[in-house]
């Protein structure tokens, strides 16, 4: 058939759209059902967290940073606390480190469960969404037991954690780990072999590892493209080098692999949590921190492996009680930047774009801050 020219037109997807996970606006240039180009417009959730942090003391920064990436608020707490500790060259009690690892990994699972649910929902399976959130509630209960909050925890502080865990925590946590481990096979049973699911996910949204690195893509998206890059192994922070776990990796870099990598990561996190619970030492949970915490002047960039990729903070201190600059970095920022690269000119349909967006697991506060 000869080329017949059709009219290209522009459609707004977002800021209020069920599958943009918040308030991203994708300006699509369409040719019929085909997506010719996509331009992300962000900033609808730009809350000036960095500016606020510059006017807060170090302790007060942490609750604000909770809202930087609320799906894994523990990571946000941790990365800032880690940066401040590095600046002040502070030692953290071992029990606190164990608790931090348990919380971080629980939070990673919670985040991936949301991913599982929302991705299934975006691809049109409505029920797995509720299953994912149902198991997430178990983890949320644990957090609530520990720090009294369901979503924004303010638990990991400079020098340790805010308080010790209650004594019911460990058995409850073991139980949750067991249940989630069992349910995980259910999740895989629902979707992994489903022909419609495979048809929708396989071969869609291929990422090129070299390009992805150049664009700063990290985390599960990069690992699904066959790059074995996990900061827990490559640039170990906290006590991750004490635990035995594998880096989940897949090689095709399509939506299906990104989905599988995340499910595998849940499994690895469960493994880490079990080991951490077994090895949990007694002792203090917080180092002595002065009421007016003043790290010496200097600057540091720390990065951790969050569920959406590398999360980092560049912290600049001028020796006063308030940081001079808190520059945060979230995985979604780079991934959303990279999104047009893999969609442009590939002839994906609007449904594919939704699947790609979902498996990139972009959440907007991390982009907009």
């Amino acid at each position: 058939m000869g080329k017949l020219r059709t009219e290209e037109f522009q459609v707004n997807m977002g800021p209020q759209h069920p599958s943009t996970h918040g308030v991203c606006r994708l300006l699509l240039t369409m040719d019929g059902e085909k997506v010719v180009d996509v331009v992300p417009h962000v900033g609808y959730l730009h809350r000036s967290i960095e500016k606020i942090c510059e006017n807060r003391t170090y302790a007060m920064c942490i609750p604000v940073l909770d809202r930087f990436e609320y799906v894994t608020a523990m990571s946000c707490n941790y990365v800032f606390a880690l940066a401040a500790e590095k600046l002040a060259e502070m030692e953290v009690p071992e029990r606190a480190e164990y608790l931090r690892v348990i919380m971080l990994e629980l939070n990673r699972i919670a985040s991936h469960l949301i991913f599982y649910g929302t991705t299934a929902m975006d691809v049109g399976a409505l029920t797995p969404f509720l299953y994912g959130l149902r198991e997430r509630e178990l983890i949320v209960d644990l957090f609530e037991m520990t720090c009294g909050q369901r979503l924004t925890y303010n638990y990991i502080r400079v020098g340790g954690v805010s308080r010790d865990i209650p004594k019911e925590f460990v058995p409850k946590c073991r139980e949750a780990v067991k249940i989630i481990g069992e349910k995980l096979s259910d999740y895989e049973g629902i979707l992994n072999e489903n022909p419609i699911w495979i048809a929708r996910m396989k071969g869609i949204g291929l990422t090129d590892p070299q390009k992805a690195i150049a664009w700063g893509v990290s985390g599960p998206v990069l690992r699904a493209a066959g790059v074995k890059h996990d900061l827990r192994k490559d640039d170990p922070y906290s006590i991750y080098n004490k635990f035995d776990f594998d880096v989940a990796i897949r090689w095709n870099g399509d939506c299906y692999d990104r989905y599988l990598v995340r499910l595998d990561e849940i499994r690895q996190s469960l493994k880490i949590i079990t080991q951490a619970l077994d090895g949990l030492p007694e002792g203090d949970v917080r180092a002595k921190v002065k009421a007016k915490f003043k790290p010496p002047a200097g600057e540091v960039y720390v990065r951790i492996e969050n569920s959406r990729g590398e999360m980092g903070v560049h912290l600049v201190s001028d020796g006063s009680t308030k940081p001079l600059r808190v520059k945060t970095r979230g995985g979604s920022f780079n991934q959303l930047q990279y999104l047009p690269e893999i969609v442009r000119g590939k002839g994906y349909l609007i449904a594919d774009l939704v699947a790609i967006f979902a498996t990139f697991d972009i959440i907007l506060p991390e982009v907009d801050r």
Partner: protein
Amino acid sequence: MPLVLMSLELIEIFRWAYGLLAELGLPPVWVMLISYGVIGVLMFGVLALLALFLVWWERKVAGHVQQRFGPMRNGWHGWYQTIADAIKLLQKEDVDIIARDKFVFFWAPVLCFVAAFLAYICIPFGKDLIVADLNIGILYIMAVTTFTVIALLMAGWGSNNKYALFGGMRSAAQAISYEVPMVASILTVIIYAGSLSMVDIVQSQNSFFGWFICRMPFGPIAFVTYIIAATAEANRAPFDIPEAEQELVAGFNIEYSGMKFAMFFLAEFINLFTVSAIAVTLFLGGWEGPWLPSWLWFLLKTLGIVFLLMMFRWTYPRLRVDQLMEFAWKFLVPVTFANLILAATMKYLGWYW
């Protein structure tokens, strides 16, 4: 109680009323008009109740599949939830969309509902319980239900909204693609029934092994292909791409609110019941069954199929639009036509029960 139920036969009432009217000395045409009119209104009442029930049931099924309860606060297990919804929709503002095409926008929901409603003229709810036993019954149903597509296309076009346009286009493409395999599966039944009349089709499968689904091997194939095509015709998940929430926000009905939206909603559930009723009539022996009154058998079987379609919706991911079309043309059409030839050959050779 069962005795009362068994004596409930609409046709008797109709005959009685007909005779009464004829005695009054009205011209026959008027008698026809009035009696059919009354039946039409009655049918609307039944369908409205049915749709209310189906919406409630859908929400309960969804709830229980998803390990929650669904509506609980309005009556016993929320039984009057949909009534509240209906009252709400009745008093919802009808927004004047500036850029719409006024005529098309207004008539789309009407056509959508009427198309769904017309099918009920020749659906046999039970023994002798049919409005008019048209001799081209099934062909007629196929013809009128297709009007729904035009209505959805009108809704998509008339809204002057890109998402709605996508929804309308998709629904048209989907409906015309699945029409062919659907009709081909129906034809396998017609070869054996030898008639297009719905009543004749039911009467030709008068024992359990006479049900067309039990005719090996083409019966089950035709049934499965019919169910797949019917799910697509009724725009149900996993074929609900015209209103795919995650892609097109709400698809063709994106700009509709209030009563106009309610008509689409109603038509969707009426269509769901229609395709299930056709499946029952063609493959599952219609009203045939022991002990219970015929209409109850029909209702039970139909609700069983409806339940099946609901379970589809809440378990499967959604197909992509191109996969959907390819599935229809590259798989269903060849399979159904091959099945048709197989059935015809076996009929000719006499290898069937």
